[in-house]
């Protein structure tokens, strides 16, 4: 009765989601940090004091300067500099941009494949279901990292480093997206199976609607909550995968570093005293992934009626 004439904003403000969010300190805290990090990454060109991609501004004399609260620092460089004299703060901002972009685009790709396959598999059932799910099983039996390392190594040696560096981001997105779709497909399939048994699907069949309409117009909107939850977790996973690959030297090139490649650059200097090149980007990576996971936990608790709190 009362929500009939409310605008979308008002509907959102009276929803259970917003209510639970307001009463969950961890969720509020995570959301604030997450949005700060996203804004920093999004507006990196405006916020960052230097452009780390512009090699002409670099001065090798500035290399390995410590953060400003340590002795021997330079006031221009908040978190110090790396081995090439790049401002670490600027590089972190740009790196976070790269990490988030890869994470989100890879999960979009996973979602596109996973949702389609999951829907078809769950709705059609029978032999189609068995075939698609066995493909998913085979896919899952290879570790994502292993697949990624093999493919990246092949691409790198086949096309040479220069071409690889140019297309590194696209290749990473494709690999992470293609390797992890079964996670989403399985989640979608299981909720489609639950929804398929409900009578509104029968009602749609009795009214003579086609399978495509029933799948995408009726069942899909009802499976969005679990998709939303798993996507958040998958973004965190994709960022970690990208960081691991970059750390191993197979990801983003040194000229366009992500958080993972920064950590990798710093590891050689870790014991010569220049700890900041590794630890500061590492701290940002940990915080970014942690807040995404905490938000994912919150979404799961809110959208899963079995764990519903009063």
């Amino acid at each position, binding site marked *: 009765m009362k929500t*009939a004439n409310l605008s979308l904003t008002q509907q959102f403000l009276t929803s259970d989601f917003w209510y639970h969010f307001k009463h969950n300190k961890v969720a509020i805290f995570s959301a604030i940090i997450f949005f700060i990090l996203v804004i920093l990454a999004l507006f990196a060109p405006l916020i960052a004091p230097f452009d780390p991609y512009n090699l002409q501004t670099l001065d090798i004399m500035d290399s390995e300067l410590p953060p400003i609260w340590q002795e021997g620092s330079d006031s221009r460089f908040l978190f110090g500099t790396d081995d090439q004299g790049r401002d670490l703060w600027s590089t972190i901002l740009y790196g976070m941009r790269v990490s988030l972009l890869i994470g989100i685009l890879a999960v979009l790709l996973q979602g596109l494949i996973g949702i389609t396959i999951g829907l078809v598999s769950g709705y059609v059932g029978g032999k189609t279901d068995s075939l698609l799910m066995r493909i998913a099983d085979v896919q899952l039996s290879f570790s994502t990292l292993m697949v990624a390392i093999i493919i990246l190594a092949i691409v790198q040696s086949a096309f040479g480093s220069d071409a690889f560096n140019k297309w590194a981001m696209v290749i990473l997105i494709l690999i992470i997206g293609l390797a992890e779709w079964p996670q989403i497909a399985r989640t979608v399939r299981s909720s489609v199976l639950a929804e398929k048994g409900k009578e509104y699907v029968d*009602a749609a069949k009795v009214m003579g609607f086609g399978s495509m309409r029933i799948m995408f117009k*009726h069942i899909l*909107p009802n499976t969005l909550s679990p998709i939303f939850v798993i996507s958040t977790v998958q973004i965190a996973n994709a960022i970690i995968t990208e960081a691991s690959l970059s750390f191993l030297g197979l990801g983003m090139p040194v000229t366009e570093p992500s958080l993972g490649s920064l950590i990798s650059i710093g590891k050689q200097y870790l014991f010569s005293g220049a700890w900041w090149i590794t630890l500061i980007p590492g701290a940002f990576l940990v915080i970014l992934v942690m807040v995404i996971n905490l938000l994912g936990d919150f979404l799961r608790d809110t959208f899963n009626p079995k764990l519903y709190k009063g």
Partner: protein
Amino acid sequence: MSLLRIDHLNIEFPNRYGTKLAVNDVSLSIEPGEILGLVGESGAGKSTIGNGIVQLLSQPGRVSGGDVYLNGELISDFDDEAIRKVRGSRIGFIFQDPMTSLNPLFTVEDQLIETIQNCLGLSAEKAKQRAIELLEKVGIADPEIRIKQYPHQFSGGMRQRVVIAIALAGEPELIIADEPTTALDVSVQDQILQLIKDLCINMNVGCMLVTHDMGVIANVTDRVAVLYRGRLVEIGSTKQVLTAPKHEYTKSLISAVPIVSKRLDRFPLVEYIEAEEKGLKHIDVSTHWIGQIKKHNTTGDLLTIKYLNLSFITRDAFFKKNRRSIQATKNVTFTIKEGESFGLVGESGSGKSTIARMVAGLQQPDSGSIIFDGTELINNPDRDAVAEAHLQIQMIFQNPYSSLNSRMKINDIIAEPILFHGLAKKSDVSGIVGDLLDHVGLGRKTGLKYPHEFSGGQRQRISIARALACRPRLLICDEPTSALDVSVQAQILNLLKDLQDELGLTMLFISHDLPVIRQMCDRIAIMKKGEVLELAENKEFFEHPQNPYTRELLELMPRFEQYGQ
């Protein structure tokens, strides 16, 4: 001194919108050997009272006022440990669903002995002896053998007997039975109720029987308390409350109960609970879009079903001889005449819903034929003709909570079939949807909302409007009211009757509930294990049943009108 006395009990559930008073100032008492019926509709607070007595309220509910005395002792002030000792040993509980109230991992023996030892502190040997005695008392044959078995080896009725034995294990003074027979078939329900009644008298135990079923109340209780929205509106001897109800709500509730002895045109006096919206536009069906149904090919028989067979595989195997299957329908044959309302009745698993699903095209039979208005629906190469025929067969489902897509607005739900099949001009659709909503008693304004904002009865009205949007000639109602409260059921049945009269709809009405069938149907077929046992006119069926199974069911059914309604 009463066995149980409740004084001005208040139970509240705080939530984000404020505090909901689930039980509001309820006072009642139970004597030893007496069965008090607690009747009311869903949300009336009847189960909450039972749980509140033993302080088993689900979070965040709490008793906010009032006293509960058991044999003169104030138990509502007891702390957790003290009340734990009261549960089981002084107050026994029987739950609704015997399928889930026993632990499937333990034998019946383990579960009984655990309770006996916990409550009475007997030695293992004595406890076992007592467990066998208890099983014998609740009517389980060969208790020495069956006690070693696991719950899944018992049928539903037998499990409920075990649950009763566990409730009796601690020699309680009071038994609280929360809808003990709701999950059981009619023939089993009768035995369980009789058992509870006998036990109460023989062991001088008081019983609080929580139920929504007026038939159960009429059959076993000595006194009855009627609850409405957390308030006790009436309490008195069963006979007095049922024959001379004082409160308006009780009157409305009683008139809504379908009776078997005679067929009424409509249910009177049912507007108390969920009245239709006022000031709805009345549409003249003969000139309106929904009245303009396409050409009729036949006069007389609208639907003919011949030798319909379907079996479900219960165990698949590579070799045919190892496969196991169950025959859901066996050579089912009947015809439904244009404009009549045909009833299919039977216990759960008798195949009645399977027939509905086959007629609606949701399931393909193994063999047989279904002819609708001259068009064969099974294995007909002319797919367009079949699709056209299927559009004229619409269905109303059992569960109103899952039969509407919760992510769509009501307007979109009803408009979808009209737009998809191009049944009306695009510019007319929103007007038609509004008219349909008015016609089923909801009002066109409700179209902007989502399904979760409606009650079960209102949702069922939406389902009906959606079915009407296809302009059906045959409406299949598969247990359309079994998930609804009795007064809401009466309103929905009234609506269906009105629609049938106005639109000349033919109905296939499926129900396990004989009184509902009696009120709704012209001809009735009774099914058991996939076979039609008897097919007769309404009056003939109820007054002179031929088949022994029909007679047995009619006898066992709890009769509400024994008090001279």
